[in-house]
Structures are given as C-alpha cells and as structure tokens.
C-alpha cells in the first residue's frame, strides 16, 4: 500500500504541473487550450533531441524545452489567439482555433520526429529500496524537480510584479486594465508561461516514460480531468486535481486490476457524480 501511495504522489507532481499550465491559460484568457498535450509532447521531443541525441547535459535540455515552448506560446498568443478573440462574435471560437492548433502540432510532430516511441538514457542510476517501498532514484529526482517547479511557480505568481498583474487579470480583466495593467502584454506572458510548464513536464517525463507523437490527445484529456476536479482557473485547484488524479490512477490500477482496464472508466464515472454535486470543482469560481 505504501508503494501505491508513493507512486500516486510521484504521478501527482507531474500531473499537477501539466494542469497548472492549462489552468493558467484558462484563467487569463478564457481559452481552453486543446493543444496542451501536444505542447507537452513537443517539450519531450526537444529534450529527447538535445539530451538524448546531441548529448548535452539534462539541465540544458530541460531549459531548451521550456524556452522553445515559451517562445512558441508567446507567438501563438500574439498572432493567433489575440486577433481571433478580438474579431469573433462568440468567445467559443477560440476553441476551434485551439483544436486546429492541436491537429497542427500533432501533424508537425509526426513529420519531424516520426511515430516511434522515443526514450533517453537514465539521468541517475540506482534504486531506492526499503522494507515496503521500491523507487528508482531518477523518479525521486524528477518528483523533487517537479515540486521545486510548482513551488517556484506559486512564489512567482504570489510575489513578483508580473505574477500579481496576472492574478489581477484572472480576477477581473476590465478592472485590471483600468488599474493600468498592460493586458495584452501579460496575456502573452501568461500564455508563454503555461506553454513553458507543459514543455518542462514533457522534458522531465521523457526520462521516465519516454515520449511518442500520439500521446498528446490523451494527455490533454487527463489535464482537463484534473482541471475539472480542482476547478478551472484556480492554481490551488489544479495542484489538488493533479494529486487526486495521480492517487486515483495509482490506487485504481492496484484495486481494479482484476477487472481489466477499467480504472479510467471508474474515474470518469466518479467525476460525473462529483460534478453533479459540485459543478465548479473543488475550488473553482462559479461558471469559470
């Protein structure tokens, strides 16, 4: 059982990071980023190329993943989302754009990196063994890195000037603008930050699970699940949702293993019941 809990915690840290990026983009721009999973995959492939193929240190590769996605995110916000939001009658139009972007990334990643499952050499060797827990050291390292990233992100949002501006933007866009917050600029920074988080998790996880071009969609769905559990647009909710999903997956795989591959079916059904009782998730604002 301890093993299951440790696995759940480890999964939870990764999931929380993915959900953080998605919820940030949603909070700032009211955009549901369908391409989030694809951004994660792209981050994974950048790390695979820089660390696995070119032989640079892992830290460099991770930074490369983050920077690539941040730049990409900023460009996407400036040249795609901003004009569409400005000109469309209904704000849901951004969902079409996001879905088209997801298709685009899927196709581009497939063309650039092929359909094979890719992995990289382990960053640390060895396994931590105790009476009840078996945990490879590289998983522990990745888990710790993820926790550090989450903590940095929260501190940044809480105390830095851009962080405060973004929180103001998430609370009330018009009021923030009236207070002199440069809305366009901080939307772009927020989108870049969200994309960067997705890329960084991709870079982290490629060392454990590897990456292939087809997993973008499923990752997006998992991210949606976490955001729904925690409540859309809330940082704390995303983290809670990530840990809850990680834990459920880990426990479900153990408890339900006799019934075949039904863990996610059970999770979905539980989520439906949960949402009918609490439509805004654990901490969400009413109606997002």
């Amino acid at each position, binding site marked *: 059982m301890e093993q299951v809990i440790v696995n759940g915690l480890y999964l939870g840290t990764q999931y929380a990071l993915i959900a953080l990026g998605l919820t940030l983009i*949603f909070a700032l721009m*009211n955009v*549901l980023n*369908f391409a989030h999973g694809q951004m994660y995959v792209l981050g994974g492939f950048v790390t695979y190329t820089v660390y696995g193929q070119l032989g640079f240190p892992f830290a460099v590769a991770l930074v490369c993943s983050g920077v690539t996605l941040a730049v990409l995110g900023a460009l996407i916000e400036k040249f*795609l989302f901003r*004009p*569409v939001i400005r*000109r*469309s*009658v*209904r704000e*849901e*139009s951004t*969902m*079409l*754009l996001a*879905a*088209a*972007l997801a*298709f*685009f990334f*899927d*196709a*581009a990643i*497939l*063309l650039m990196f092929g359909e094979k499952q890719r992995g990289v050499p382990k960053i640390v060797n060895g396994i931590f063994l105790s009476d009840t827990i078996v945990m490879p050291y590289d998983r522990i390292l990745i888990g710790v890195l993820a926790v550090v990233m989450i903590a940095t992100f929260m501190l940044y949002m809480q105390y830095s000037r851009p962080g405060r501006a973004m929180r103001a933007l998430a609370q009330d866009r018009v009021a923030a603008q009236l207070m002199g917050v440069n809305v366009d600029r901080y939307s772009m920074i927020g989108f870049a930050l969200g994309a960067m988080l997705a890329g960084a998790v991709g870079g982290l996880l490629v060392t454990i699970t590897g990456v292939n071009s087809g997993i973008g*969609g499923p990752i997006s*769905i998992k991210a*949606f*699940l976490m*955001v*729904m559990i925690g409540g*859309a647009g809330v940082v704390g909710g995303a983290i809670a949702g990530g840990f809850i999903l990680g834990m459920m997956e880990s426990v479900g795989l153990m408890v339900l293993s006799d019934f*075949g*591959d*039904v863990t*996610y*079916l059970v999770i*979905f*059904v539980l*989520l*439906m*019941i949960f*949402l*009918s009782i609490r*439509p*805004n*998730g654990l901490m*969400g604002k009413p*109606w*997002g």
Partner: protein
Amino acid sequence: MKRTFKAASVAAFLALLLVGVPSFISATGRSDLYYTLTSVALLSIVSAGVWITFYIGRINIGQGAFALLGGYASAILVTKYGVSFWLTLPFAGILCAFVSVLIGLPILRLRGVYFAMVTLTLTEVGRLLALALPITNGARGIVSIPLPGAITLFGVTLVPDFATLANPRLAFYLTAVVLMAVCFACLYRLVHSRVGRICQSLQQNEELASSIGVDIANMRILAYALSSFLGGIGGAMFAAISQSIYPSTFTIADSVNFMLNCFLGGLGHVLGPMLGTFVLYFGWDLLFQTGSFQLLIFSSILIALMLVLPNGLLSIRLRGQSQG
C-alpha cells in the same frame, strides 16, 4: 414572394441531390463519390445535433458517445435479435435521447468550458464502455451487419430489400439524403418556432430568460435530448452503411470534428452544420493526395480560416446583408 423563392430553392436543392448527383455520378462513373456524399449527409445530421446544443449556448463535444451508442444499439438489435433495421433506427434515436436525459440532468447545470470538458470526457467514457462491456464484443467490434431489409405495408413494398438491389450504394445515398432533408427541415421548423426563440434566449442570458418565466431546466434537457436523438440516428445509419461498428468508430477526434463542422459553417444559421461538414469532409478528401502532409495542410487551412472568418463561412453572407 420571398416564401415562394425559398420553397423553390429548397426544391431545386433536393432535386440536385436526389436526381442531379446520381445522374452526374453515373455519367462520370465516379461511384466512390456515393460513399463520400452519404457520409457527409449522415455526419451533417450528427453535427446538426451538436448545433442544437450550441443554440442553447452549450459547447457539446460529447456527440461521439451518442453516435457510438446509437450505432451499437442498432447493430446489436439487428445481429443478435434479428430486428429489422428500420425499426432499430428510431429506437437508437430514442434510446440516445433517453440516456441523454439521464446524463443531462446533472451535467446541463454546468456551463461554458465546464460543460465542454465534461462532454469531452463523455466521449471517452463511451469508447471505454464499448471496450469493457461484454455485449459490444470489445475491440473486435460488431462486423458483417446485414443490410437493411424491405419495408412492406399491406403487401406493397415501400422500400426494397437492400441486399437484393443492384446498387446498394445508391440506395444508401438516397436514404441518407432524405433523412438529412427531413432532419434539417424539422430543425428549421424548430428554430423558427416559439421553442426556437426560447432556446435563443437561453443562449443569450439564462437568468433573464428564467426571470421572464422560461423553464430553463426543461428547455435545456429538451434541446440536449433532441441533439442526442440526431446523434443516435446518424450513428445507427452509419453502422448500417459500413456494416460494422468498433469502439474506435466515433472517438474524441470525431466529437471535435462535429463541433468544428458547426463552427466552420457558422453557428447563426440552420444550414451551418451541413455546409461545414461538406467543406471539411471534402477538404480532407481532396488533401489525400498530399500524403503525410495531409493533416498539416488541413489544420493550417483551418487556422487560416479562423483568422480570416472567425464567425464561420455563412457569416460572409450575413456581413454583406448588414452592410447593404
């Protein structure tokens, strides 16, 4: 004057579909077009369902689940119990409507992105259920479903047995077009009725609508049930035409595509989903020659279209009207 013009254009459109297209195909020998056009007709029925939920202001990405349910319901009844396909078609629709009422009661309280995300996971639930339940035969799916049989009323054959026909493709095409025409006619009638206007008021402001005395909970359920009904019918027909159904027949990508069809055609007009499905499906088919670049080019065009026409294809006409 305007009324007769409208009736004439509808009649011309139907004549083109029912007579013009078959004669064009037999003249050019491109009988593969039948399958494409039949798919467009059926998928536009399913997309019309999504359009209804848009009409009450909800983003529905769960239509794939209902199309799958309808397809499986019809397939199981036909193969295991020997029920006539024509009976299973309305049954599939009604079953989907019933299930959607059960699901809709809790989830229709959600709005905006929450509803979109829940319906998205609903599609995934549908796929996983189809994989897990024993009656659906798992990942192998249900194959070699017999073709629809004959309908006879008092000894008069209304619809011949599809298996005895020389060209079942043509028969399927005609059935699908008629079904599509009926669905869109009903949809048009609904949208221009009192109920349609109430639906539009839900789209604009639910609180206001409810304060004037609209029973918003019932209206939402009604619209969602209708939407799923269309999804079920489309799915059942699709299973009959491809004579097979798998858990992967309707996936999240399909659900997203149904939504894209509505967006692309334009959410402001009844014919939006039909036009959107036609353009998307044919665009995808035309790009087949580009091989591995197909998806890349397709999605680039979609992105470009969004930048140029963020309100859908039919908004060109509307903009012209408001200016002139």
